[in-house]
């Protein structure tokens, strides 16, 4: 689960893996092409007089008159007028194309959906809930979404504190998460893969370290993952792991975190029920492995200064069982 390479991660809008991002990229390429041509043309027009000057071509003797001839002014008027007219037409065309593409990537252009995910932004992590009409079947996780390839997914975005922005460049444009509002957008992956995204609205000290992963996988793998996520946390199998669970339950951890199936029922921090199966710690800041986890628990402020995670003093003999236990929560 943790063995994917972090050599080069793409969070690029230029490498879309989703329907909407592809549509946006096509529009973008078209506009860059068209506007690039216009830019080059305008620059050439501006630079040619410089070249002419250097070749010593005589121009009208303006030192005395300061006024070119009537004929010149008339010609210029026609050229400038046509250029202005062409600009209007081109811009109107761009407006029309943008509106059409905009409609297709908005919820108006969405095929009928089956999956609704509620994403709530917090400082500086993402709460993820897979919605269900039966409240007891709502699945809660954090900082990582799994979606099935080829099926549209509705993201309902909210915020618990300040304005955040949910943005997975490989899949779709961004949508701000605003407290007291629900903002909806849809994403759909066209191919399996891991898509990284990042909060895109300045939200305070650790805005830079508020990332999330969207894992797009084939239907059968997604269904397996989904079913497993709905279950209680894996009970500790060995004595060492039981000791780790005891350390967790006796510390401040349970005041904030939730592990389904134990007494830990805190609501203000990421859900840890299946923490071991996630790719990263601290909203994409660290790869999820035991060394990083120990460092994170021992000194969260050193890794993510300003984070709301408390610096809980854990005795050195308790640390190893604790992280073993947390990593066992697959």
């Amino acid at each position, binding site marked *: 689960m943790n063995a994917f390479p972090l050599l080069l991660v793409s969070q690029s809008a230029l490498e879309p893996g989703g329907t909407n991002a592809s549509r946006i990229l096509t529009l973008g390429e078209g506009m860059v092409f068209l506007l690039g041509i216009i830019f080059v043309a305008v620059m050439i027009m501006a630079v040619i007089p410089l070249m002419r000057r250097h070749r010593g071509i005589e121009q009208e003797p303006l030192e005395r008159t300061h006024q070119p001839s009537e004929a010149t002014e008339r010609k210029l008027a026609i050229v400038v007028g046509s250029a202005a007219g062409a600009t209007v037409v081109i811009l109107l065309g761009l407006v029309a194309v943008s509106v059409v593409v905009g409609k297709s990537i908005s919820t108006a252009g969405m095929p009928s959906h089956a999956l609704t995910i509620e994403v709530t932004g917090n400082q500086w992590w993402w709460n993820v809930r897979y919605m269900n009409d039966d409240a007891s079947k709502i699945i809660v996780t954090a900082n990582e979404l799994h979606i099935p390839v080829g099926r549209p997914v509705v993201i309902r975005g909210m915020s*618990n504190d300040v304005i955040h922005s949910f943005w997975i460049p490989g899949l779709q444009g961004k949508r701000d998460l605003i407290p*007291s509002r629900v903002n909806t957008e849809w994403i759909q992956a066209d191919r399996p893969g891991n898509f990284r995204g990042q909060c895109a609205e300045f939200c305070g000290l650790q805005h830079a370290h508020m990332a999330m992963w969207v894992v797009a996988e084939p239907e059968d793998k997604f269904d397996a993952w989904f079913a497993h996520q709905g279950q209680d946390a894996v009970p500790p199998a060995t004595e060492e792991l039981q000791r780790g669970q005891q350390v967790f339950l006796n510390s401040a951890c349970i005041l904030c975190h939730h592990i389904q199936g134990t007494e830990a029922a805190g609501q203000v921090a990421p859900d840890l029920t299946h923490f071991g199966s996630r790719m990263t710690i601290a909203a994409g800041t660290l790869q999820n492995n035991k060394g990083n986890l120990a460092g994170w628990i021992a000194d969260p402020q050193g890794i993510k200064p300003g984070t709301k995670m408390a610096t809980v003093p854990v005795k050195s003999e308790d640390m190893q069982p604790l992280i073993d236990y947390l990593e066992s929560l697959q």
Partner: protein
Amino acid sequence: MLLTAACQREKRDLRPAPTRLAVLGTAARESLLQPGGAQAPLEPVNPAEGNAYSISEGQRLFNAYNCSGCHSHGGGGIGPPLIKDVWTYGNDPANLFDTIVKGRPNGMPSWGGRLPEYQIWQIVTYIRSLNKLEPKSATPTRSDSIEQNPHTLTPVPEPKLQ
């Protein structure tokens, strides 16, 4: 002097060092008698005194750790109010610290051993700010009950998917 007050208000200490209390386990002595002759009394200094960031963290933790479950937003409910003139166990920072760490009879849980020390000081300073014992410029301007938090946010009805 104005400058030091401002610096105290504005600084942000993300990793406050533990005070000597971590060793002693208590902030306020209950007796002034000491063996070996009089010594300078142990006066634990509230590291978060007058600090705006600590008070705002205290406000956040007050809700996060559900102090408001018993004390509401200072007005009390199951537990006594925290905005008052007469304090059974005193409202000096050291006394408030002990109340939270040791717990008190008739229902106040003992949080020592769970909460990290620096967070207890933040909550202590926040409670003092509720009682206007902290500088006004460092105190939050909104009462807790009307401050925004997940339980007070009622999202506007979701617009129809257009």
